[in-house]
């Protein structure tokens, strides 16, 4: 039982703390509403095809590991600058500082004219070409391929259909492979009910606003929870900048090419063809057991977009002898772009890759 004096003292402390928070909120959002800059690490564009760009980060003379590290992010949905969000909260910056020769395949801003972009073009043209250009720019023989989210699905599909790919290692981060375990999206995209064809026919792409609505519906309370977190942490150094940057990114949706969305909803979420070896591209069956590269497979324990089992299944189907699975605390994005990623995922990737490229 708390004494009255103690209670009053706690209440006073609490009141003062909340006044400080209110002051910090006013300072951060009213007095200084500016948003932090995005894409903090310097890069040069190595290759460009339409909207697709291959970016190379960092300075050449600081590279310690000669094997290029190519990041392939998700296609559509949102922009990849969450990988290079803020100084000190950037996976790209971290890897560059550790001496990796980092590349990013940027799919660009998807719009109606990209409706025909699907797995075929990504897997048989864009990824191979990006790898070629990265190898040429770095004067290397092999790369480390890092697929993130649907980029991991594309990466796995590429490796499964290109057994002689110049890829030394494969890092798959929260990449959906077993769509049977695909969480709520699996339920919603049920082909008996979801009018995927109608959407593609009508818009050509899955529009950004529908995409945003779908992701927000997954967790309708997320923004309220984020605001509550902001109130609690507003006085922590760097928290507000991080909140602003993340909040901007989280509302900056882009569309998804119609063809890719159709394949994803029907063949992946609908029939789960990839893991069953029934997915056929350009007449070739995608057989994930043909992947032999050393594999680091990462999942997040609170991921409601790609639940951990959906990502973990890659471990069961590849033929790689050297393979490791990690389930880290965090959500789908925070696992690779949160404050704790600095202590968990990024050092792990650096260590794992460094041990295999030198």
């Amino acid at each position, binding site marked *: 039982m708390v004494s009255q004096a103690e209670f009053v003292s*706690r209440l006073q402390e609490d*009141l003062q703390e909340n006044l400080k928070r209110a002051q910090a909120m006013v300072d951060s959002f009213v007095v200084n509403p500016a948003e932090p800059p995005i894409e903090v690490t310097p890069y040069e564009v190595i290759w*460009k095809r339409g909207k697709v760009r291959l970016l190379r980060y960092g300075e050449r003379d600081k590279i310690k590991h000669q094997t290029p590290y190519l990041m392939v992010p998700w296609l559509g949905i949102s922009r990849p600058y969450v990988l290079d969000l803020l100084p000190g909260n950037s996976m790209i910056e971290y890897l560059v500082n550790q001496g990796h020769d980092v590349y990013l395949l940027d799919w660009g801003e998807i719009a109606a004219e990209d409706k025909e972009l699907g797995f075929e073009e990504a897997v048989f043209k864009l990824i191979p070409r990006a790898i070629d250009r990265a190898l040429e720019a770095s004067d290397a023989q092999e790369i480390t391929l890092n697929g993130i989210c649907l980029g991991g699905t594309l990466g796995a599909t590429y490796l499964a259909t290109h057994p002689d790919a110049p890829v030394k290692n494969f890092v798959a981060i929260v990449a959906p492979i077993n769509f049977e375990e695909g969480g709520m999206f699996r339920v*919603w995209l049920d082909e008996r009910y*979801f009018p995927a064809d109608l959407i593609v026919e*009508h818009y050509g792409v899955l529009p950004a606003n529908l995409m945003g609505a779908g992701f927000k*519906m997954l967790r*309708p309370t997320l923004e309220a929870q984020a605001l509550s977190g902001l109130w609690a942490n507003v006085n922590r150094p760097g928290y507000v900048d991080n909140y602003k940057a993340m909040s901007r990114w989280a509302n900056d949706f882009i569309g998804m090419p119609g063809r890719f969305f159709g394949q994803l909803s029907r063949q992946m979420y609908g029939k789960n063809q990839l893991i069953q070896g029934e997915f056929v591209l350009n007449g070739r069956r995608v057989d994930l057991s043909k992947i032999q590269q050393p594999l680091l497979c990462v999942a997040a324990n609170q991921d409601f977009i790609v639940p951990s089992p959906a990502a973990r299944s890659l471990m069961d189907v590849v033929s790689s002898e050297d393979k490791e699975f990690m389930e880290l605390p965090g959500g789908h994005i925070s696992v690779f772009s949160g404050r704790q990623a600095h202590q968990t995922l990024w050092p792990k990737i650096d260590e794992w890759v460094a041990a295999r490229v030198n």
Partner: protein
Amino acid sequence: MTTTENSTNPFEAWQEMFRKSTEMWQQAAASGSPNPFWPPNNGGMPGMGMPGAGMPGFGGFAPPFAANDPTAMWQQFFNLWSQQWSQLLASSPGPQTFSDAQKQWNDQLEAMAKAFADTMSTEDFAKALGKYMEQGLHAQERMADTMNPQIDAMLRTLNMPSRSQMNRLFVHVLSIEERLDDMEEEIRKLRKEQEASRSSTASRRRTSRSNAGAETETAD
């Protein structure tokens, strides 16, 4: 605020409001009169104004299915949430400070998230969502069929390109860029082959020269 009875009062009021609004909705659906929350075939973007969109009582939702379904579905959501909320409040003392209140708010948000997840992971929800989207898309299509010729005519009058003309232009520019990239790729391949053939010719020459040298030495 420690007893369950007190805490559920606002909830009951909300449920009551929800019940009344769905009754209105059902009546409107049964009588074929316009939807009380949104005009029929409104042409609004499906899913706009999330996360409330699609929820009866939050506006922007035309009933695409039997009137009883959404009531049951969302009733289940409210029951789940209210149950979890009551359990939370019963298991902890009322907030003594702002920090306690904030913690309780976070717990309630978590409970609400769970209730949403449980409700929205059902086949019923998928069915409703699909029908809602389908209806929205058809409505948009009808609206586009009506509006687009007028918009195009207006843009022509202003000597401006229409959206479809701009799309065609983008596709055209993109295809030119892609063809250029394909040509560049071909040139790169040819260069590589040329370099490879040059280096193999050079090595053949070196080999034949050294063979010739060896033969001359032998003959000497």
